[in-house]
C-alpha cells in the first residue's frame, strides 16, 4: 500500500507527464486497500464489467454484418447464423451474454441489499448503480427488437405502448418514439442507433460507479468500517487473483450455455419473422423482465400499472432513506434476514407470474407478490429500522478471526489514510 514505484524508465517518463500508472495503481492495484474479509459475492461487480466488455466487443462485430431494415433485418441475422464465419458463435455469445449480464447484476444487487451496501456513506454509489440497471434494461430491450422476429416486434409494440398511458401527451409521445403510426422501419433504425450508443453511456456511468466506490472502498460481509491497516489487504494481487478465479468459474457456466443450450433462455417464437398483422398467442418479454412485467399486469388500470412498474425501480433509488437501521450487514439483523429471504422468493414468484397469462390464479399470485414487494420496501424496512434489535457488532474485521486479539497496534481509531 505504498506509493507507486517502478524501475522502468519508459513508465517513469510517461508517469511524469501523465500520471496514468499511479492512477491505475490507486484504482485496482497495490495502492488500493480493500477489506480483507470480502466473500465470493464481491466477485460479481468485476464479472459485470467483464460481461459489459464481452457485449461491446461481440456487438461491434455483429453490427458489421447486421442490416437495420424491416425487409432485411431478420434475414441478415439468419445470414450471421449460417454464412458468416463463426457468426453463430458471436451471436450466441451476444444473445446469452445479455442474460448472463442480468444474472450477474441481479446477484450483485441482492448482495448489496443483504449487506446494506446502499447505506451511508455509499448512497450515491448505490443510486448510480440503479441508473446502470435502467440503462441496461433500455439497451437489452432495444437489442431484442433488432432481429425483427415476432417477439421482437410485439414486445416493442406493447412496451412502447406503455407510454400511451401518459395523460394528454401519450399518443404524441408514442408516435414520436415510433417515428410513424406503428412500430416500423423508422423505429427499427433508431433502436439500432440507440442500442449501439447506450453501452458506451453505461461504460461512462460505470466509471462514475467505480469513482464513487473508491471514495470509501468496498463494503464487506460484516458491514463495519475498516479500522486500520490490519483490516485491509492490497487489491493487487489479492483481489485481482480472486476476481480472475471468479472469471474462470463464470466462463465455465457461460460457455456451457453458449455451446450446449444457446436458445434455452430465448423464446422460439422470435425465430418467426415479424408480422405486423398477426399477434402471437402469448407475448412474454425475456426472463429478466418478467418480475416487472408481472407488476405491470397485476394492476388492472393501464396508467397505474405503468406507474407501479417504474415505481418498483424507483423504490431502489430511495432505498438508503427507507432502511434507517444503523447496522449494515444482514448477518447482525435477525428479523431483516427473514424478510430478505422472503423478498428473494417474492421476486422469483413475480417472475413466474410474469411468465404466465394474467388470468385466474396467476393474476392473483402476481397481485399478492406485487403488494408484498412494495410492502417490503415502503413499510417493513422503515419499521425494522426502528423496532429490530440487532445483534452486537464485532469491534473490528480482525476481531472475530483473531479471537479477541484483534486490537493490535494501531487498531484503536487511527483511520487508514485514503490511498
Amino acid at each position, binding site marked *: 500500500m505504498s506509493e507507486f514505484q517502478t524501475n522502468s524508465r519508459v513508465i517513469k517518463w510517461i508517469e511524469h507527464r501523465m500520471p496514468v500508472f499511479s492512477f491505475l495503481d490507486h484504482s485496482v492495484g497495490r495502492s488500493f486497500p480493500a477489506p480483507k474479509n470480502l466473500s465470493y459475492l464481491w466477485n460479481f461487480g468485476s464479472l459485470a464489467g467483464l460481461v459489459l466488455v464481452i457485449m461491446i466487443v461481440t456487438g461491434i462485430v455483429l453490427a458489421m454484418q447486421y442490416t437495420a431494415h424491416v425487409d432485411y433485418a431478420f434475414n441478415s441475422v439468419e445470414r450471421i447464423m449460417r454464412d458468416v464465419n463463426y457468426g453463430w458463435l458471436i451471436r450466441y455469445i451476444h444473445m446469452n451474454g445479455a442474460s448472463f449480464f442480468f444474472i450477474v447484476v441481479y446477484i450483485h444487487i441482492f448482495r448489496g441489499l443483504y449487506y446494506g451496501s446502499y447505506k451511508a456513506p455509499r448512497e450515491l454509489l448505490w443510486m448510480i448503480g440503479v441508473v446502470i440497471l435502467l440503462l441496461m434494461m433500455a439497451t437489452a430491450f432495444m437489442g431484442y427488437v433488432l432481429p425483427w422476429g415476432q417477439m421482437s416486434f410485439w414486445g416493442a*409494440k*406493447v412496451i*412502447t405502448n406503455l407510454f400511451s398511458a401518459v395523460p394528454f401527451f401519450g399518443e404524441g409521445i408514442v408516435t*414520436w418514439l415510433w417515428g*410513424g*403510426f*406503428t412500430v416500423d422501419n*423508422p423505429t427499427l433504425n433508431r433502436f439500432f442507433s440507440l442500442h449501439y450508443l447506450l453501452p458506451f453511456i453505461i461504460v461512462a456511468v460505470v466509471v462514475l460507479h467505480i469513482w464513487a466506490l473508491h471514495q470509501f472502498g468496498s463494503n464487506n460481509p460484516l458491514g463495519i468500517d475498516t479500522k486500520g491497516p490490519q483490516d485491509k489487504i492490497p487489491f493487487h494481487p489479492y483481489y485481482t487473483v480472486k476476481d480472475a478465479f471468479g472469471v474462470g468459474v463464470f466462463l465455465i457456466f457461460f460457455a456451457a450455455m453458449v455451446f450446449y443450450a444457446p436458445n434455452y433462455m430465448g423464446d422460439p417464437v422470435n425465430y418467426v419473422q415479424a408480422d405486423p*398483422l398477426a399477434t402471437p398467442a402469448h407475448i412474454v418479454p425475456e426472463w429478466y423482465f418478467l418480475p416487472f412485467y408481472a407488476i405491470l399486469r397485476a394492476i388492472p388500470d393501464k396508467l397505474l400499472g405503468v406507474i407501479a412498474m417504474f415505481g418498483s425501480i424507483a423504490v431502489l433509488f430511495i432505498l438508503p432513506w427507507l432502511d434507517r437501521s444503523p447496522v449494515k450487514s444482514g448477518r447482525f439483523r435477525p428479523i431483516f434476514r427473514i424478510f430478505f429471504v422472503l423478498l428473494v422468493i417474492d421476486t422469483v414468484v413475480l417472475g413466474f407470474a410474469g411468465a404466465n397469462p394474467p388470468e385466474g390464479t396467476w393474476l392473483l399470485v402476481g397481485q399478492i407478490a406485487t403488494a408484498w414487494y412494495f410492502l417490503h420496501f415502503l413499510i417493513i424496512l422503515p419499521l425494522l429500522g426502528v423496532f429490530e434489535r440487532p445483534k452486537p457488532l464485532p469491534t473490528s474485521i480482525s476481531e472475530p478471526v483473531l479471537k479477541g486479539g484483534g486490537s493490535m497496534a494501531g487498531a484503536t481509531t487511527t483511520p487508514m489514510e485514503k490511498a
Partner: protein
Amino acid sequence: MADTATPAQAGSGETRRDFLYLAAGAMGAVGVGAVAWPLIDSMNPSAEVLALASTEVDLSPIEVGQRITVTWRGNPVFIDHRTQEQIQQAEAVPLDDLPDPQADDARVQQPEWLIVIGVCTHLGCVPLGQKTGQSRGEFGGWFCPCHGSHYDTSGRIRKGPAPLNLPVPPYEFTGDTSIVIG
C-alpha cells in the same frame, strides 16, 4: 471589492450583475432549446411516412357477414360487412352498459359497413375475429388474446383491460362500394 464599495454601489452593481447573469443564462437556454428542437422533431413521422396516409378499398367483393383486413399507415384496419342481426345487436345496447359510451350510429357512416382500426386500445395487439374459426369474444365482435379484451359488433370495448373502443379511422365513400381511408 465588496469591502471597499459603499452599500449603495455594491447593491446596484450586484443587481446589474444578477440581471446580466440571468439574461445570459436565459438566452443560453433558449439557444439550446432552439438547436435541440430540430433534432427532436426529426424523430417524428417523416414526409414519406405521412404520404402513405391514405388507402383505397373496393368493397364490392365483400359478402354480407364477411370481414377483411386492409393496411393503413402500417396498422390493420378491420372492414366488417355486417349482417342485419349484428347491426340490431349493436344498436340495441344501452349506452350505460359501455365503458366508453358511444352509440353505434356515431361509429358508422352506413350501418352495414363497420370500419375500425384493428389495434387493441390496451397495449396494441391485433384482436382475433377476422378469420373464420377465430374467437370473437363474448360479444360477437373481436377478442384480444394478449390480455383478454372483448369487443362487440360495433367494435366497442365491453370487457377486459382495454380502456377505449376500437378507433374509427377517418374515411369517406367515394362511390357506392368504394372508400378512401385517411
